[in-house]
């Protein structure tokens, strides 16, 4: 039987506010346990929450960026459940009236087609703390530093039809939240993670299959693998005469499998009700207009502009704009290079990207600045150095040896364009290699490469290749 896969994602993006969603504690990552947990975060008797305006603004910003309805009246609800790292015995979230409803985003499929993915809703909520199971001799430690960190939970429609689509969608949201500067997108620190709802149904069937929810996946690679495993598991199960049960599953990246956490029957009744300690969030048009007017250029628009303004290929523009930092790096490089956008794009996507990957660095950690790279490209375009020498200069810049001009100067890499000088070198080589000269003249033109190599070698690669070619041809003809 042919199966159709149906996937919906719930993405948790940690909002990049300085303080928590309901208290003044810092949200910085990595502090000693419980040093960033105040009375409110600890859920002490008598404490009350006060909503962080910045978190609300970020939620609204996201909604406006995905063409959604930003609710003028949204309400915080309490989701009641007991867990040691949930200090109040409930999580403050938004169930009935979320801040964002009915948005959408476009993804590009492998065949280049564009698909629109619906975003059902996005709501504000607080993160829980962490339970620490190591180093406590059978006991569990509780770290409440993360408790109360603001999250935006972004819930997609079940519009995704493969693990690849899910990844493309997740990357798109990942890119967007960073463009909007509402999330740092750091997946290792858990700032951006997702739950995947996966089901399968016979192709052509309208009714959805029973879904399983895979919890807390924190990398693009794992999303793809976890979903593919889950699809395989469900199809195998059904084909063997079994039945998928609605449950929560956990992806184990070490074993590369999903396993059951709890079934629907064991699931909590969360007893949601409006939080009586918080007033509804009321937003008006003036507020929303102000946010709308301050929205930055978003990835799609930037891509279109790059193609138009810099005459880039669609695929290059796509990669350059997927990450905000990368797009900024590219544009700055172009500016410092005084144009030459295509060469800049090639360098950013080629040498820079390769060096970053090799050293496991992100673009923001690049040891080469756009100013330096632009300076290098300037010297290529004004023919001070050849493309080949440029790679040597790049390496030296990467190692912190200064600007392109400094390196060219210090290492004497300046391209030789003096025809007299090049002619002199060629004459010497021809004198030393009379045999090859004869061969060439008798019609064996393959030896031409030999002369080019010798000339470049004699000039330590500095001779202008075009001039070398022209002069060689003239002289060899005799």
């Amino acid at each position, binding site marked *: 039987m042919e199966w159709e896969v149906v996937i919906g994602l719930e993405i948790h993006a940690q909002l990049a506010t300085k303080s928590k969603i309901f208290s003044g504690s810092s949200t910085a990552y990595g502090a000693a346990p419980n040093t960033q947990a105040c*009375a409110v975060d*600890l*859920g*002490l*008797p*008598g*404490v*009350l*929450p*006060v*909503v962080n305006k910045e978190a609300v603004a970020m939620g609204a910003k996201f909604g406006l960026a995905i063409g959604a309805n930003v609710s003028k009246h949204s309400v915080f609800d*309490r989701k*009641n459940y*007991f867990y*040691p790292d949930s*200090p*109040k*015995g*409930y999580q403050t979230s938004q169930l009935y009236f979320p801040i964002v409803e009915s948005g959408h985003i476009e993804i590009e499929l492998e065949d280049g087609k564009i698909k629109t993915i619906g975003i059902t809703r996005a709501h504000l909520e607080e993160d829980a703390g962490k339970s620490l199971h190591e180093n406590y001799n059978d006991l*569990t430690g*509780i770290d409440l530093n993360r408790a109360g960190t603001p999250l935006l939970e972004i819930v997609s429609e079940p519009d995704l039809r493969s693990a690849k689509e899910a990844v493309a969608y997740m990357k798109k949201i990942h890119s967007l939240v960073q463009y909007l500067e509402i999330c740092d997108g750091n997946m290792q620190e858990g700032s951006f993670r997702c739950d995947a709802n996966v089901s399968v149904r016979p192709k052509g069937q309208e009714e959805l299959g029973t879904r399983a929810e895979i919890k807390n996946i924190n990398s693009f690679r794992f999303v793809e693998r976890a979903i593919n495993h889950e699809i395989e598991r469900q199809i195998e199960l059904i084909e063997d005469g079994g039945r998928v049960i609605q449950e929560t599953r956990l992806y184990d990246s070490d074993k590369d499998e999903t396993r059951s956490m709890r079934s629907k029957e064991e699931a909590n*009744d969360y*007893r*949601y*009700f409006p939080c*009586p*300690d*918080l*007033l509804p969030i009321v937003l008006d048009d003036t507020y929303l207009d102000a946010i709308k007017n301050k929205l930055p250029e978003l990835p799609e628009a930037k891509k279109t502009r790059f193609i138009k303004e810099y005459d880039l290929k669609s695929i290059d523009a796509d990669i350059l704009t997927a990450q905000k930092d990368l797009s900024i790096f590219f544009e700055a490089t172009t500016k410092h290079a005084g144009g030459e956008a295509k060469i800049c794009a090639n360098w950013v996507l080629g040498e820079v990207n390769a060096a970053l990957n090799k050293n496991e660095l992100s673009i923001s950690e690049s040891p080469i600045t756009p100013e330096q790279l632009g300076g290098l490209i300037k010297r290529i375009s004004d023919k001070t150095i050849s493309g080949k020498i440029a790679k040597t200069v790049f390496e030296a810049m990467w190692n912190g040896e200064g600007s392109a001009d400094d390196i060219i100067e210090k290492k004497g890499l300046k391209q030789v364009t003096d025809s007299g000088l090049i002619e002199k070198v060629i004459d010497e080589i021809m004198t030393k290699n009379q045999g090859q000269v004869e061969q060439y003249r008798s019609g064996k033109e393959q030896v031409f490469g030999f002369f080019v190599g010798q000339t470049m070698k004699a000039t330590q690669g500095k001779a202008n290749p075009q001039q070398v070619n022209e002069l060689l041809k003239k002289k060899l003809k005799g």
Partner: protein
Amino acid sequence: MFQKTIAELIIELQNKSISSVELTQAYLNRIQKNDQIYNSFITVTPDLALEQAERADKRLAAGNAEPLTGIPLAQKDIFCTNGVKTSSGSKMLDNFIAPYDATVIDKFNQAGAVMLGKTNMDEFAMGSSNETSFYGPVKNPWNTNTVPGGSSGGSAAAVAAQLAPAATGTDTGGSIRQPAALCNLTGLKPTYGRVSRYGMIAFASSLDQAGPMTKTAEDAAIMLNAMAGFDPKDSTCSNKNVPDYTADLNKNLKGLKIGLPKEFFEKGMDESVAKVIEDAIDTYKKAGAELVEISLPNSGLSVPSYYVVAPAEASSNLSRFDGVRYGYRCENPVDLEDMYKRSRGEGFGEEVKRRIMIGTYALSVGFYDAYYLKAQKVRRLISEDFKKAFEKVDVIMGPTTPTTAFNIGEKSNDPVTMYLSDIYTIAVNLAGLPGMSIPAGFANNMPVGLQLIGNYFEESRLLNVAHQYQQITDWHKQTPAM
């Protein structure tokens, strides 16, 4: 000296006929000597009190005192007090030393008031008799076989027995007004949002409100001046300006329109109580007020809707008491679930558990619409009733309670009968209005309270109406034989 009001003590402190240390020490001695009879305090804080009194005396000497500087007060044990045990009347918090001050406490500290100690109360403010306290029942100074009312029963008994000149209470369904009525005190529950709830251990967040319990309306005004005001730490706290609540006390009552809800007078009230209430209203009429019959058609629904909304919120508010971070934890838990179940099972008393169960049920899938949402709708209807009434009248009056103080143990096995003792006070909380109870006379030698209900943020008018009554009657001056 112990009969003196705050207003009188302010004068004595300021003209130096007594020092705060002397006054405080006298009250501490009196508490030590007499409170084993009433059990009105859970914690007495003599060292802290004397330290505060010394500081107050310095302020008084330096001439930068505020009205409450040097005045000893009793604080309900529901307010977190930095470094002092804050139990909320529960075994669950018997070991809890609060690491911060509630905003109300902070305001009293700023004003230079002295805290004598923390008063007994129904466990987590759930009760109308002070019998649900982990620390044992409080006795009514007017008759020690009877209850003082609840949940602010310790505060009421302490002021009635003259163990403190005044106290704080909190009122979720009548917990200031009902004990004030049963102990012959003036008690004021302000408009919801008038006083910060920060640091006040939550029972039902949308209903809880703190207020003063005093000997006179004038004292209540002085106390409210210190307590009221916007607090950035409480999102539900109003940023409306705080007037000087003593400013309007002396306005005369001519032309005051008093609404009498016919539903309050139809049935349920003890005859002897009804007589006292009628006399009190007659006194107002003689003072120039106009009586208007009004109707609050949905008031009969207030008790059932309250007993959905309040337990629902409580069931969630009390989830944080799980034995993990503070408070009671059972011995030798075998695993997490065992720790939760036994810590909560052993740490909470019967009435609290009953309300957690009611609230949990009301919020459950399949019942939420039928109970919680329905109750919220009723709540809006009740508010509408009041809104209409206040288009016609200035204040509403009626009884605070259907009976005088009942005997200890009399209703403790019959929760519904107990719940009905708040039948006249609950609607005020559901609507978020300010309400007062003032001494109106006696039935069978026990105090009867007259309830005054005002429009939103009209505490000044309530205090004026109460104060004027206290100028022409002396019920509030009666004290129990001790």
